[in-house]
């Protein structure tokens, strides 16, 4: 574990370092990815700790956009805003909201919590909902919209611009009976495979079959190809579930079948789902294919999972992980620079599903029809606000009007160009299956997949158990 290398960690001799390590470890546990919260990078708080400096020109452009929304009026007052983005990423979000406060005089009372879903429900039940929510639970928003708890955003945001600038599949996820109730303002791209550009000698844009041939050949030479670490406190298991199993399933069976699986219409004990589990198990329990075999996979923290790619000699070559990993490596992995980092999209299995781009993220939705809330909901949909978010270096934003040049690092510019600005990818954007299962199912998924990697012989039991959780939570 290399937490102590995070910039900003106090360096006060040995005791200081030990303390920093312990604190970082606790942070990693705390940050450890509340099931399905997704949203911004779970490590943002560790990877960077400096307050983002935003370009003055962008800040004044954002102020201008905010003034246009309120027709130049300082409406004042406050707006209650409930989100999950916290730590350094939370600071970045607040920095991008600052021009809105300056221009409109509205104070944004932002509250971040890892148990957003239950807190939102509790506050609604108590008749005290926040004005706005920055939600990581698209399913919950749809349910709330159907129950009449959300205010439609048509007429609040500039619908023409929003339709033009945001990917249609993402808008559809927040649309109920033709009305828009939520739009994604931050997205996190999954189904990527990372490598060390100086050490990895395999195919750069392989199909799954090509990659399997290469990893097999590498195994025959005694070099395991895959890196993996799934340890993440109470949500241990998510890296194998989100970044590998979900990706395998979607690449082979496509979004429509994934939707059946998410909705409980395709059982976990079906041959399709079972194939995905077996494929994950075949790699991550075999020490010839993954460094250290199942025990190392289970005991390695997800943050340290790819460190072996940057040691000399490397102990592994490929790490499936979401987009945040690209900016995490130069900031936190010893001996790695931005130039070392390379990636390719998760390999294609069934050709027509090769572009399906899996994301999760944060949706803006409105619960109270107050002028301050309307103004903020409108502001957060503007390209000026989204540009500021991009410039913080903490997020990828789905707004196509944001120039890719806004991103501060080459890797984030490349990701934005390929994933956000490309029309083909935009049209094929889908949500990560793990985000669309009911919360108990997702949590049991992580837990059972973790157990399965230790006891591969019990697969049928674990899948039957999943089916019973689906049944009891529907």
């Amino acid at each position: 574990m290399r937490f102590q290398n995070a910039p900003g960690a106090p360096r006060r001799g040995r005791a200081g370092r030990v303390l920093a390590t312990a604190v970082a470890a606790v942070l990693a546990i705390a940050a450890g990815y509340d099931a399905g919260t997704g949203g911004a990078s779970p490590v943002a708080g560790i990877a960077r700790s400096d307050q983002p400096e935003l370009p003055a020109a962008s800040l004044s452009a954002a102020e201008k956009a905010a003034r246009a929304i309120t027709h130049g009026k300082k409406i004042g007052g406050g707006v209650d805003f409930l989100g999950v983005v916290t730590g350094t990423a939370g600071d970045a979000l607040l920095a991008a909201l600052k021009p809105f406060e300056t221009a409109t005089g509205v104070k944004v009372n932002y509250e971040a919590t890892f148990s957003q879903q239950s807190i939102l429900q509790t506050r609604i039940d108590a008749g005290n909902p926040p004005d706005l929510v920055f939600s990581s639970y698209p399913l919950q928003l749809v349910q709330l919209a159907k129950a009449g708890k959300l205010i439609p955003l048509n007429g609040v945001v500039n619908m023409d611009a929003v339709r033009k600038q945001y990917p249609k599949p993402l808008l559809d996820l927040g649309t109920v009976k033709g009305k828009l109730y939520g739009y994604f303002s931050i997205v996190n791209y999954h189904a990527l495979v990372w490598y060390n550009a100086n050490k990895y000698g395999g195919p750069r844009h392989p199909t799954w079959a090509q990659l399997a041939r290469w990893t097999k050949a590498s195994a025959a030479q005694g070099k395991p190809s895959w890196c993996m670490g799934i340890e993440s406190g109470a949500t241990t298991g998510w890296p194998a579930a989100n970044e590998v199993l979900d990706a395998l399933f979607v690449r082979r069976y496509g979004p429509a079948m994934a939707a059946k699986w998410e909705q409980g219409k395709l059982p976990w004990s079906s041959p399709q789902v079972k194939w995905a589990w077996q494929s994950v198990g075949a790699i991550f329990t075999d020490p010839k294919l993954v460094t250290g075999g199942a025990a190392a996979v289970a005991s390695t923290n997800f943050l340290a999972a790819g460190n072996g790619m940057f040691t000399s000699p490397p102990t592994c070559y490929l790490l499936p992980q979401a987009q945040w990993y690209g900016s995490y490596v130069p900031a936190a992995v010893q001996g790695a620079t931005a130039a070392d980092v390379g990636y390719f999209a998760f390999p294609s299995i069934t050709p027509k599903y090769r572009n399906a781009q899996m994301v999760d993220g944060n949706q803006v939705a409105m619960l109270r029809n107050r002028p301050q809330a309307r103004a903020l909901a409108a502001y957060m949909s503007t390209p000026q606000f989204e540009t500021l978010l991009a410039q913080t270096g903490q997020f990828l934003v789905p707004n196509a009007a944001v120039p890719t040049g806004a991103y501060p690092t080459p890797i984030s510019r490349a990701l934005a160009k390929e994933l956000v600005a490309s029309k083909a990818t935009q049209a094929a954007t889908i949500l990560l299956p793990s985000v669309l299962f009911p919360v108990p199912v997702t949590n049991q998924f992580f837990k059972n997949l973790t157990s399965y990697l230790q006891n591969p012989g019990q697969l049928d039991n674990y899948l039957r158990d999943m089916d019973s959780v689906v049944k009891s939570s529907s």
Partner: protein
Amino acid sequence: MSRQALDLALGTTIIPLGVVAYLVASEGAVGRYRVDRPTLRAWLWLAPTLVLIGGVLVYPLLKTIYLSVKGPDSEKFVGTDNYKAIFTDPSLLSVLKVNLLWIVLFPLGAVLLGLVTAVLLDRVRYERIAKAIITVPTAISFVAGSVMWRLIYTYNAPGTPQIGTLNAFLNTVLPGFVPKAWLIDSRFNNYALIFVGVWMGTGLATLILSAAVKAVPKELVEAARIDGANEWHVFRRVMLPELVPALAVVTTTAVIAAIKVFDIVYVMTGGNYNTDVIATRMYSEQFAYQNTGLACAIAIVLLLAATPVLLANRGAMRREAAA
């Protein structure tokens, strides 16, 4: 931040002032009316505590019992289904089994080690320093201690550098040692966790038992020695009987700690790999699986399991105080 400071200031002034004002006012009231004063006064003085206990203990307890006979979303009445599940569902039974292991091994380890150190340290000059060292882990929070031990137990694949202290040490001293995944291999991970508990619990046991050892009358020990008893006999026949009340207190306290252990398991394994205990399962049923009914039933079972030990503990404390 300023809001929190304000809350803190209000909390530290208004609550004590309010209680004092209430007591003054009630004393005034008692003086004014001709009633059975001792009884009335007692109730008036008890009232703030009763309100507090009622609000934070009795009401939540009743509500928990009520919720434990309901389904996951607290709407449907399910009778004793949740309780039946605890004692029939295989995954919950394994949780009970792991907790039983804790209940047996944790007190055994902590009390035995505590007793041995207390008795042996009584005989050396550097007792104070040694005792201070042994009690240091007691001062560490369970979460911080667990994070430390996670680093000690860290596993790296054989053939790669061992970052975990324990594997690195064994690797150095034992040629041909294969690194062990201490927290993952279910053959020994529960023992690894219990050891962390013992490491943190021994200090307190040592402190209490050491005080009891000091209280054993010196004349008694000397008399036994003069009568020809060897050291073992002195310990077994003279000291141990005197230590029984203290041992009872320490053991029951340790058993209660073992019944409700949470932090070590939650931080170190998250309940994975067959290490789930009752308290971690209660937590995950509520917060990960959103099954409020089952979580509440587990809470009640936990309470019922701890209550007899708690009563024994109280009895032991009284006897120890009397001894």
